[in-house]
């Protein structure tokens, strides 16, 4: 019997594929529609307010640490920005220190020196296996307990003070005439970049090396200080002073920030160390031997041969660690560091009751931060990948 036209159509692979896809898609749409509908209905029947008008209303609460101008008469949107900046600050500092410490311990663990390798191994194994929240509490309360009260502050040169309210540093005020110095500073930086490009080109052409780094450093620092002297040091310092309960003036690092960045960097560094170790071990031993046999010094073997190849293995998992650190910074709420979660998903949420809008915004921020970090690291990875020759 010949199959009819209809059954031909039914048993056609493409038709079946489209059919199932259409069914799946409509189920998904139906599901989403149901959820949204259900939510809207539930919210209506419970008298829950919705929408984003609350962002323009005065917040009426204070925040302990703000990078921008903020007071109880500022809006909820300002509170959002304050929280966001505090999160970015802690994530930025955390990533910086975690990378340095992580690379150091990763390389140490591969050291042929037994003691150094064991120290690194112990550190990594201990830190990696203790929950982060516990470590944050430990550092916070350890720091608080160890430090004296404001009146018994530890002093350095009568201008730096350390107590259980934080670290107080003199703040530099730049008076008139300093703009020239800053222009000069940026000009020397640009000149340095040209020096680097020129020395690289010359080396490629002739093979003669040039100490570009030291020359640029001398240029930037030298010109900066020369300009300072020439203009008669137009910089004054705002030195913290003990007034009433606490120090006023100057710059201040609150203990919450210190404890949180410390815990986050130490914790993530242990993971980064393992990533670095894996990356270096992934470079075949033959590469090291070949590099040595062409007469490169140990430092250059690491810098020119091993690290560039290891980075290709390191960067993707390193990106993960950066993302983890950023997301883990939301544990700040436990020790009163006013990050996005504490300020916005905490206080602001409680005062407005608009959980869905606020949690949505906070989720959006973390999603954006994660995607942004990924994009940057992917770009870096593309630059570092094997060049076809």
């Amino acid at each position: 019997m010949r199959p009819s036209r209809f059954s031909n159509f039914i048993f056609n692979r493409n038709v079946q594929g489209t059919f199932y896809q259409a069914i799946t898609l409509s189920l998904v749409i139906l599901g989403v529609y149901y959820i949204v509908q259900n939510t809207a209905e539930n919210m209506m029947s419970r008298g829950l307010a919705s929408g984003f008008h609350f962002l323009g209303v005065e917040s009426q609460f204070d925040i302990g640490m703000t990078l921008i101008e903020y007071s109880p008469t500022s809006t909820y949107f300002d509170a959002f920005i304050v929280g966001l900046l505090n999160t970015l600050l802690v994530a930025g500092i955390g990533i910086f220190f975690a990378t340095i410490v992580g690379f150091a311990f990763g390389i140490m663990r591969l050291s042929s020196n037994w003691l150094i390798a064991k120290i690194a191994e112990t550190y990594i194994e201990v830190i990696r296996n203790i929950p982060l929240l516990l470590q944050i509490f430990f550092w916070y309360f350890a720091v608080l307990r160890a430090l004296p009260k404001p009146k018994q502050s530890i002093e350095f040169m009568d201008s730096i003070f350390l107590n259980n309210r934080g670290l107080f540093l003199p703040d530099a005020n730049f008076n008139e005439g300093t703009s020239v110095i800053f222009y000069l500073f940026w000009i020397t930086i640009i000149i340095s970049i040209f020096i680097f490009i020129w020395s690289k080109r010359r080396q490629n052409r002739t093979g003669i090396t040039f100490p570009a780094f030291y020359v640029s450093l001398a240029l930037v620092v030298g010109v900066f200080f020369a300009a300072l002297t020439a203009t008669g040091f137009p910089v004054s310092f705002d030195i913290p002073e003990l007034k009433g309960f606490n120090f006023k003036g100057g710059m201040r690092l609150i203990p919450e920030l210190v404890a949180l960045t410390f815990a986050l960097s130490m914790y993530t560094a242990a993971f980064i160390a393992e990533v670095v170790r894996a990356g270096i071990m992934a470079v075949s031993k033959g590469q090291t031997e070949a590099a040595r046999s062409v007469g490169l010094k140990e430092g250059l073997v690491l810098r020119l041969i091993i690290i560039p190849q290891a980075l290709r293995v390191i960067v993707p998992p390193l990106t993960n660690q950066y993302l983890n650190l950023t997301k883990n910074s939301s544990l700040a709420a436990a020790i009163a560091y006013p990050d996005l979660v504490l300020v916005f998903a905490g206080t602001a949420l409680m005062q407005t009751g608009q959980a869905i809008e606020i949690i949505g915004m906070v989720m959006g921020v973390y999603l954006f931060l994660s995607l942004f970090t990924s994009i940057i690291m992917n770009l870096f990875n593309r630059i570092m990948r094997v060049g076809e020759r």
Partner: protein
Amino acid sequence: MNNIKNTILGLVCSVLMVPAAYAGTLDTVKDQGFFNCGVSQGVPGFSNPDENGNWSGIDVDVCRAVSAAIFGDADKVKYVPLTAKERFTALQAGEIDVLSRNTTWTLSRDAQIGLEFAGVNFYDGQGFMVRKDSGITSAMELDGASVCTNLGTTTELNMADFFRANSMAYEPVVFEKADEVVNAYDEGRCDTYTTDKSGLAAQRTKLADPDAHVVLPETISKEPLGPVVREGDGDWADVVRWSLNAMIEAEEFGLTNSNVKTTCAMTSNPVVARLCGKEGGTGAGLNLGDSWSYDIVSKVGNYGDVYEKHVGENTPVGLARAGSPNASYKNGGVLYAPPAR
């Protein structure tokens, strides 16, 4: 944009709200034989677990009274400890049926967040605690102080108002959990700890050396604390409201936990007879048995019994009732129950 918003909104809600059994809480509760009561994570005198995990306190007794009214048994309650931040979401999502967790009754909570307050079981006000050796005797001397407090409370707003109104500077240090606030204050992170005065009295018992601290005389806010239910379920709200009112009215008419049996047996006072469930059929309107108020007083006690047992002068919390707003209106307080008839 609107689509994105709705999607996120929906995703969050699907987790939060779908399981909520919302209308007809009373029927659901009767069917399942218990209800969930949201309490604090441990505020001595208000809601605090002992070493065996049994909860007690005046906030807990509100839930016990509701249980007694419905089931004739004060212990058909499951207690759910919540942080200040979690409490309203837990109630909205149906995770708990009554929130009895020293929660301040405010307009925005009542009108915006979809909550309904069922009354006031403690009239409180916000105060400050400082170390005795700081030499501070008034809240007006707190200019420049670091202030420890709890996230998600009216306290945060009151303190901002107070320092702003008096043009004083301060540094807020805000923790998510009450225990962390107490710990940080104890470690010297803050010069002062602020919350409701009852909370200060309760939390002081947790400090390393309670006698080294003093509560300043100023009260900077009104904090009427009471049980809360979801908005839109009037029957359930009525049960909770009248359970509390019955405790207060029982005290007004001298019906106590210890004398309720004998008094009810021989009373000739019609009000007392109604409270005893002998006359008036008050239970029908609430969909409860007529002995509901008798059960509350005999199983839990009247307001005075509960107060003296958990937060009165002979307890570690030690809050004198006489002269405070929590005294009955007959003794110059503001505690006044509408008639249960």
